[in-house]
């Protein structure tokens, strides 16, 4: 139940591999877990108008995003038998090659963790008011468009 409480999601800048490792380590004491699934979003160095994306700058409407994230989390616990779930999203600048999204689900058996993780990723991308501005190598910028 404690897992369902409001939790910190937004992280200033990129999500480090060390942060992910620490998050994994914390679960070694939960001995009813048999499977973890992790999704990581990494900034791609796409080409736009012949210029390379060198970073994405993320902003969000926090007052609206947080209750939506809480609702997504609640729905996910109802839908899947999870031990715990964690969602982290960057705000501010994240360079190409760095991690901007970290979704982490754990369950006794693999199916729940695997399905819950992509369920969360889809809902986060679709429903959470976050915007990415792609910063190009010529310092111009383009608002990102999720397909």
């Amino acid at each position, binding site marked *: 139940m404690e897992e369902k409480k409001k939790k910190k999601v937004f992280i200033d800048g990129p999500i480090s591999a060390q942060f992910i490792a620490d998050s994994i380590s914390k679960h070694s004491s939960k001995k009813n877990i048999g499977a973890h699934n992790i999704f990581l979003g990494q900034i791609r160095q796409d080409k736009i108008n012949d210029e390379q994306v060198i970073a994405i700058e993320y902003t969000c409407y926090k007052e609206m995003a947080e209750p939506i994230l809480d609702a997504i989390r609640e729905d996910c616990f109802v839908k899947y038998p999870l031990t715990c779930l964690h969602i982290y999203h960057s705000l501010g600048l994240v360079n190409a090659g760095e991690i901007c999204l970290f979704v982490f689900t754990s369950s006794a058996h693999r199916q729940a963790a695997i399905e819950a993780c992509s369920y969360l990723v889809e809902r986060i991308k679709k429903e959470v008011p976050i*915007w990415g501005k792609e910063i190009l190598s010529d310092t111009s910028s383009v608002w990102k468009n999720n397909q």
Partner: protein
Amino acid sequence: MNVSNPIQIKLVAFGVLQEIIGAPSIFISCDPNLESCKENLIKQYPALAKQAIQYAINHQLASENIALTNGSEIALLPPFSGG
């Protein structure tokens, strides 16, 4: 008689819509319902007409015309692009 007293609302805007409005938030006067407010905004910022916009009232998505009260927070949200 659809005369109503104008109210004062807080408008917040994000992404490309913030660039069009020219500020993260402004206070505006409008009639106390979402449709009138939208019309006013598009009159004042014609570039909004070409944009895909979702509206939120007090942090809740508003998919139809709803009543606004003094001090409501209206958010102009371009398509989300998190993740």
